[in-house]
């Protein structure tokens, strides 16, 4: 759609063909790009289909619409679309009971389906203690609707998520990370919109991990820790309410992804034998940072032995085809690898060199895209084993999780190496007092 708008801007008429299920998405994209009149023909050609009969039937059924879109003179509205009106949303949006507030927000599409904490003036004021930045400070405009990411809007969404004020610096940094990411990740656009249901995965490094109790140990990805639960949730609400990403309109994930509720971990720096993730990006160990990638799948695996060969082969065996890979090893496993001389860099190298697949797997990915007439590979060429991962930088290694043998491979997408994926977390002047106030808010289980 973006190419279509760009071509129309060069005064060339375009007709865009799209599956009927993507009509709303196409309309949103064309409006967002300032050209609501783009002629989109919704067809029944099935998404991603390789069945020629279905494709031809879809085009046959849509043919008159395609010809009309190609030839019918444009209307006055298409030539000069009416300007949309500036929004003037009320700051205080509703008054009601807890249930009424929740129903009001839910009906507006402002929640993730779980109950929210009412963002009252008092709650937002308390949240804002997590930053020295003024509430009206604009950090940027978040894709897709270019909503203004002000500190106050970030704080409101953080309150709704149930976050504590000590998490606000992390959530602000996470928002900056999204704002400054390359196209495709800015505001989580491509990966938020894709049919692939990619979920943002946030890794927190540095001293803040312990100050705000982000779990890096047992069950780090399970429910039960406010920081892990609400930082990711707040980021999801920010994408929704500031970026304007709507499920089934912009977010066209086919299956969806439970990791979109929250996917946050701290690296277990204390027990790791290696340098923490953020130092790979030239940050100091004493800095606190948040990084983001966009996995699609969460795959746990159980190395058959504690030696490096068993661990590494388990990692390699459990990597399906994708674009970026995060390997999360527990501390004991990390120490076993380190004992045999493996650094994070050596692990990345090993995985990239040893994850081999038949060339047919990779050719299959581009097979449908080759130009008509291009030479098809021979069976011999297709059977040749080739590396799946062409660059070790597409692999990240972090240490997390509790005692035990299980490890995790996160499979999905992420920034182009060298492009934005990590942001330093800035703390307010009164940080120590704020930490004191909230630091002891931890679950104390009954003994039985």
């Amino acid at each position, binding site marked *: *759609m*973006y*190419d*279509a708008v760009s071509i*129309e801007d060069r005064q*060339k*008429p*375009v*007709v*865009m*063909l*799209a*599956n009927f299920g993507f009509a709303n*998405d196409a309309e949103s994209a064309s*409006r*967002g*790009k*300032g*050209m609501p*009149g783009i002629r989109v023909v919704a067809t029944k050609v099935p*998404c*991603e*289909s390789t069945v020629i009969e279905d*494709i031809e039937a879809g*085009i046959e059924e849509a043919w008159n619409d395609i*010809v009309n879109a*190609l*030839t*019918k003179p*444009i209307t006055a509205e298409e*030539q*000069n*679309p009416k*300007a*949309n009106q*500036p929004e003037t*949303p009320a700051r*205080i*949006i509703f*008054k*009601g009971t807890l249930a009424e507030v929740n129903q009001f*927000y839910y009906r*507006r599409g402002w929640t993730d389906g779980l109950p929210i904490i*009412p*963002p*009252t003036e008092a709650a937002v004021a308390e949240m804002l203690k997590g930053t020295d930045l003024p509430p009206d400070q604009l950090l940027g*405009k978040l894709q897709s*609707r270019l*909503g*203004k990411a002000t500190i106050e*809007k970030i704080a409101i*969404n953080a309150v709704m998520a149930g976050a504590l004020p000590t998490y606000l610096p992390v959530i602000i940094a996470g928002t900056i990370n999204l704002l400054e990411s390359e*196209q*495709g990740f800015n505001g989580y656009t491509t990966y938020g919109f894709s049919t692939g249901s990619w979920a943002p995965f946030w890794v927190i490094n540095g001293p803040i991990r312990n100050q705000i109790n982000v779990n890096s140990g047992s069950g780090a990805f399970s429910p039960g820790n406010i920081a892990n639960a609400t930082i990711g949730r707040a980021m999801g609400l920010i994408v929704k*309410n*500031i970026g*304007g990403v709507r499920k089934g309109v912009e977010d*066209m994930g086919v299956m969806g992804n439970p990791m979109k509720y929250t996917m946050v971990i701290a690296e277990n720096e204390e027990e790791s034998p290696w340098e923490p993730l953020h130092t790979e990006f030239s940050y100091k160990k004493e800095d606190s940072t948040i990084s983001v990638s966009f996995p699609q799948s969460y795959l746990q695996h159980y190395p058959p032995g504690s030696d490096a060969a068993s661990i590494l082969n388990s990692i390699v065996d459990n990597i399906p085809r994708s674009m970026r890979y995060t390997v999360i090893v527990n501390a004991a496993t990390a120490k076993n690898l380190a004992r045999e001389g493996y650094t994070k860099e050596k692990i990345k190298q090993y995985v990239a060199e040893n994850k081999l697949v038949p060339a047919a797997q990779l050719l299959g990915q581009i097979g*449908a*895209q080759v130009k008509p007439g291009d030479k098809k590979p021979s069976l011999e060429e297709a059977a040749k084993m080739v590396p799946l991962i062409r660059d070790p930088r597409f692999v990240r290694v972090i240490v997390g999780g509790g005692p035990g043998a299980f490890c995790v491979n996160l499979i999905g997408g992420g920034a182009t190496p060298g492009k934005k994926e990590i942001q330093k977390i800035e703390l307010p002047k009164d940080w120590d007092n704020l930490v004191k106030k909230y630091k002891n808010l931890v679950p104390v289980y009954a003994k039985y």
Partner: protein
Amino acid sequence: MSANTENFYEVLSPWAEADPVAYRGISPRVGDPNGKAIGLLCNSKRVAPPTLKAVESRLKKQYPKASISWFYNTVPNETMDQQPRKGEFEEWLKGVDVIIAAYGD
């Protein structure tokens, strides 16, 4: 009868303001495609090439005097403006009168 002790909350809007997007119109159509140069812009979706092939076959039948050329944007999730082949794309665009693009999704 118990007293109603339920709290009322006056709440702030999480929905961000956005500046209105300035809208632009689309280009006039070119009329009868016969005699025109029609460009088929094929994106990275695997359904795109066969879809445009089906379009091409019908165009050839219905508008035998139209010329047809293809351009492949095979890089997923990137517009042609972002790619090293931008120059090649611009050249192709100069040579066509109207474009049919596929496929979303």
